[in-house]
C-alpha cells in the first residue's frame, strides 16, 4: 500500500477505526509520519491518536450552525473549542460542560455512544447511585401498581422514601 501523504513510499503505518460499522482508514509511511511530527504509537515521539482525532473533529456536522468554534471557550481553563479540535485534548474537566453541545456527535463517532453506563465513584458519586436506584425502583413501582400488587408497591414506595431521604441528607 502506498502512503496517502507523499504518494510514493510504502505505507507502514495503518490506522483503522470502526465504530458502528463506519470505517475510517489512514495509511502513511514512516518518514511522512515523522515529518508531520506525528508519533508512531508506542514510541517516544508522541501519540498520533490525537492528530487522528482532530481529523475526526474536522467533519463538523453542525458546521455553519451556532457559534463559531473560535468563540466557544471554556471559562475555567480558557481553552477554545477550535483549540480543542486542533490538539484533540480537553484542558480541564469543565471543558466537557462548556463544549457539551458539540460533544455528542464526537463521542458517537469515537465510541458509538455518548453516555456513561459504567462505574460510579463510591463517595462523591453516592447521589448519582441513589438517583439511578430510585429511577429503577419507580419503574418497578409502576409495574406493581398496574398489576394491582399493592403490597409489593407499598414496600417499594418505602424503599424509595428511604433512598430519597439519603439524597437530601448528602
Amino acid at each position, binding site marked *: 500500500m502506498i502512503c496517502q501523504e507523499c504518494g510514493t513510499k510504502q505505507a507502514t503505518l495503518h490506522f483503522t477505526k470502526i465504530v458502528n460499522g463506519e470505517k475510517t482508514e489512514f495509511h502513511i509511511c514512516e518518514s511522512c509520519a515523522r515529518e508531520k511530527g506525528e508519533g508512531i504509537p*508506542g514510541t517516544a515521539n508522541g501519540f498520533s491518536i490525537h492528530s487522528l482525532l482532530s481529523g475526526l473533529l474536522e467533519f463538523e456536522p453542525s458546521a455553519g450552525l451556532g457559534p463559531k468554534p473560535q468563540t466557544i471557550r471554556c471559562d475555567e*481553563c480558557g481553552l477554545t473549542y477550535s483549540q480543542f479540535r486542533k490538539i484533540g485534548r480537553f484542558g*480541564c474537566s469543565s471543558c466537557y460542560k462548556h463544549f457539551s453541545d458539540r460533544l455528542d456527535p464526537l463521542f458517537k463517532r469515537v465510541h458509538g455512544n455518548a453516555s*456513561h453506563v459504567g*462505574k460510579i465513584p463510591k463517595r462523591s458519586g453516592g447521589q*448519582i447511585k441513589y438517583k439511578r436506584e430510585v429511577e429503577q425502583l419507580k419503574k418497578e413501582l409502576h409495574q406493581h401498581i398496574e398489576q394491582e400488587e399493592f403490597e409489593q408497591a407499598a414496600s417499594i414506595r418505602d424503599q424509595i422514601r428511604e433512598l430519597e431521604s439519603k439524597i437530601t441528607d448528602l
Partner: protein
Amino acid sequence: MEKRRFAQDALSEWMREDGPDSEIVISSRIRIARNLRHHPFPMLATNQQSREVMEQLTEVPRSGKLDELGAFETFVLSDLSELEKRVLVEKHLISPNLANESRGGALVLSGSESVSIMINEEDHLRIQCLYPGFQIREAWQLASEIDDIFEQEVDYAFSERRGYLTSCPTNVGTGIRASIMMHLPALVLTQQINRILSAITQVGLAVRGLYGEGSEAIGNLFQISNQITLGQSEDEIIDNLYSVARQIIEHEKAARERLMAESQIRIEDRVQRSYGILSHATIMDSKEAAQRLSDVRLGIDLQLIQSLSPQVMNELMVLTQPGFLQQVFSEPLNTEERDVRRAELIRRYLSPKT
C-alpha cells in the same frame, strides 16, 4: 550510585509466575485513567498546579492507604536518570510520555512491579495492573480496588452523563484500557493472522505489536485492547475482550497442532536453527533477536526444546532492548556495539549451565 531495584532485574517479579494459558498469553493489563476535579489536566497545568497534584496523589501511598495491598515505593521522575527512565519504559512500567514530557511526574510502584501508578501523565492519575498469563478479570478487580482507595481521598472529575472525565476524548467514560499481550507464532506462520486481526478490529478492539513500530509485530507478539470506553460498562468491555482473546487462543492452539501434525520436521528445523543462531552468533540486531527468540519460545511450548524455561525467553525479550543492554553493561553503546553485546548476552543466557 546504587542501582535501584527496578533497574537490576529485567523481569518484574510478577512475570516469573506462571499464569493461565501462559504458553500463548504473556500478560494481561488494565489501565484506568482518572483526574482530579479542581485542577486543569496536566497538559494545561502550571508547574505549581502539577506539583500540588503530585503532592495530593502521592499522599495516598505515603499515608499507608495502599498498605493492605502490599508494599509500594514512590519515585519522583525528576530524581531518576535518563537510563533509569528508559528501563522503566522498556519494562512497560511507565509510558514514554511520562518519562520524557511530564511535569510533576511520579511513579508509585508495587514490590512485585505488577502495579504501577503514573501521576501527571496525560491524566492526573493512571493506575496500571499487570498479571501474568490470561487474567484480565483479576487485573480489573485489583485496579478497581486501588481506584476505590484513591477515590476515598481525592475528588475525581466525574459527570453523571459522561462518566470519568479524561484529557483525551478516547478515554472518557470508564477511563479503562484493557489489553492482552499474546504470542501468536503459529497464526503468523500459517498466514491466518491478518484475517484474524482484521476481524478483531471489526468488534471495537485494536491490535498493535510489542514496542510497536507501526502495525508490524516484533517477535510475533500482539497486543489486543478495547477502543471503546463510553457507553459500555467495565464488565462488558472486559467480557468482550475476554471472549475474543479466548477465541484467538483456541485458533493459535489449533494452528500449533496442525503445524506439528503436518510439518513437524520443518518446525523443528526452524526452531533449532534459531536456537543455534542465538547460541552462537556474535552480532544480533534487535529485530532478528525478537524473531529468533519467538521461534525458540515456540519450540519450548511445543516441547521441542526441553532444556530452557519459557521465562528465560520473556526475560531475554526485555533484556535485549537498548536501554536494558546499556544498564547491564553500564556504559553508553552505539548501535553496532549494542548488537555485539546483545549477541553476547543471549549466548551467556543460553549456554548450558555448569
